[in-house]
């Protein structure tokens, strides 16, 4: 053991952590799925099936075996990429996930990019101009972001920008005549259309994504700007800021080079968490904008007791969280020499 290089140990450790987390997550979701007072057999065979049909389906699903065996069988299939079939779509869950996750990924990424690009400077300005009007404006902007229900803003946005002004595309990811015109590579239409070099599709996709992504960006902006402000205030009180001023540096160098250099570190975690929250799929936004993402997929599956789909979705969401955590840890070490 002792002979192994540090980085191999590090990778091994990370892998082990991920494994434990994922198995634990699956186990909890699996057990909840099995103990729910919904009969998975009935939802397959229907209310009017005969006793024999019911029993056959019961055995086929492996429900006669002990819970732990069922779980192990389920794990075995999952490792082989077999997430089972969805009752709702009558397709393999894996295929469904390949379709819905990129849609959410695209939306959440756009939302996070705009949220960070606007939220971070807003938070910094609010901290630097603490107690003055810029700070109050930032606070009101963030407060509205926190408190306005998305179904309201979303509908009003559609009404104004799509219905009245016609500046943007309506619900859905593309206008109907553009659907499936570019080859499916990543599943993210913005990327796929660029890869295919089809600017018409790209522009159309932008006009559709801009409002929902803008809304998600607003929500993450609200959170990110508040956190940036408080991190920034903490750093501006530190003695090394006085040092920087004593050197004769300009305020912008003091703020961006010195204070912000230290704010980056905790901010990474905040941004990763906010991104992860968006990747989980925002059901309301997806519903209003008819966005076929993972949030509405899992919700629909849950409402119709489609446990295979729920479990599959949970794996994806869990993996996303774990991966983002690992990624933010790595970035953390990159930006903070003390963590190396």
């Amino acid at each position, binding site marked *: 053991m002792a002979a192994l290089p540090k980085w191999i140990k590090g990778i091994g450790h990370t892998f082990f952590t991920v494994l434990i987390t994922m198995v634990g997550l699956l186990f909890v979701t699996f057990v909840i799925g099995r103990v729910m007072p919904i009969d998975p057999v009935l939802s397959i065979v229907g209310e009017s099936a005969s006793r024999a049909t019911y029993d056959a389906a019961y055995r086929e699903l492996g429900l006669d075996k002990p819970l732990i065996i069922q779980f192990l069988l389920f794990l075995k299939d999952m490792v082989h990429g077999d997430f089972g079939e969805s009752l709702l779509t009558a397709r393999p869950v894996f295929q469904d996930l390949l379709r819905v996750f990129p849609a959410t990924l695209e939306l959440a990424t756009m939302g996070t990019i705009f949220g960070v690009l606007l939220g971070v400077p807003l938070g910094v300005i609010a901290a630097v101009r603490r107690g003055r009007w810029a700070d109050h404006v930032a606070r009101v902007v963030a407060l509205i972001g926190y408190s306005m229900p998305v179904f309201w803003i979303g509908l009003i946005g559609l009404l104004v920008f799509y219905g009245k002004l016609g500046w943007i595309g309506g619900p859905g990811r593309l206008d109907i005549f553009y659907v499936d015109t570019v080859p499916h590579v990543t599943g993210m239409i913005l990327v796929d259309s660029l890869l295919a070099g089809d600017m018409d599709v790209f522009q159309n996709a932008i006009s559709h994504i801009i409002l929902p992504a803008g809304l998600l960006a607003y929500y993450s902006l609200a959170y990110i700007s508040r956190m940036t402000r408080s991190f920034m205030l903490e750093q501006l009180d*530190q*003695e*090394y800021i*006085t*040092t*920087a*001023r*004593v*050197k*004769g*540096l*300009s305020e912008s160098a003091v703020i961006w*080079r*010195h204070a912000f*250099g*230290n704010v*980056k*570190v905790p901010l990474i975690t905040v941004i990763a968490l906010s991104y992860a929250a968006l990747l989980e799929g925002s059901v309301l936004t997806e519903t209003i904008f008819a966005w076929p993402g993972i949030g509405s997929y899992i919700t629909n599956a849950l409402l119709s007791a489609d446990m295979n789909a729920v479990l599959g979705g949970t794996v994806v969401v869990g993996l996303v969280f774990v991966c983002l955590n690992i990624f933010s840890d790595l970035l953390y070490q990159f*930006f*903070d*020499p*003390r963590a190396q």
Partner: protein
Amino acid sequence: MTPLLEVNHLTVKFLTRSGVSEAVRDISFSLGRERLGIVGESGSGKSVTGRSILRLIRRPGILEADSIKLEGQDLLKLSERAMRKVRGHQISMIMQDPKFSLNPVMRIGDQICEAYRLHAGAGKKEAREKTLAMLETVLIRDPERVFQAYPHEMSGGMGQRIMIAMMLIPDPKILIADEPTSALDVTVQKEVLEIMDALVRERGMGLIFISHDLNVVSAFCDRVLIMYAGRIVETCRADRLHDATHPYTIGLLNSMPRLDRPVEYLKVLQRDAAWDLAPGVSGIADEGDGA
């Protein structure tokens, strides 16, 4: 000859919820090319005085003074932009604890280079060479390694030497040292003080040495200001501190334990409310220069 620095009727107030609190109350002093100690207990206004000279009092603090003159030029009349050229370039300051006064996520070399490049307008390469030379001047054995290192990898003594290097690299005329050794081990204190002393003498700079340690100040400075409750209560020559006349100074001296004169009970300083208001003394012990 005009003194290097002249502070006239400086008052610093802080507006708090419970009213106005005056940290420094109408003090005046001057500094030549000498080592001036400012001594006082916590809250006596010594650090605020140091920061006022650099105009680093920020809201809710308010700085009022007739003038703060650097070689005859009134710093209070300068724009913020012009003041930035004074900071670091003409007047510099070393702070108490290098653990907090160095930026934790920036390489030490970059922090020192930054100070030099800002005022000398030098290129990267020149700044790097100058920084390495400066690190050697403050007796750092392996400048190349320290240049690449981060502050948390340094000990307190090393950190303070780095601070000295960083603050002296633009060649200022005045150095304000705000309790530069209070956070250090006694053994390291002497080392750091000697380095600072040698550099200040060599360059013919003025030094304002802020401390609560009477022993260090009397051994290290030419002249001492004793501050109490935001006022200078006494000014005297450092080597004649023991002839001080103000009861507060005498009280401070009496409350210091001494190895060569052990006593059963140390005297406790008895404060007198009248000190808050009475004018300061500069008795027989003061033969202040520059004033």
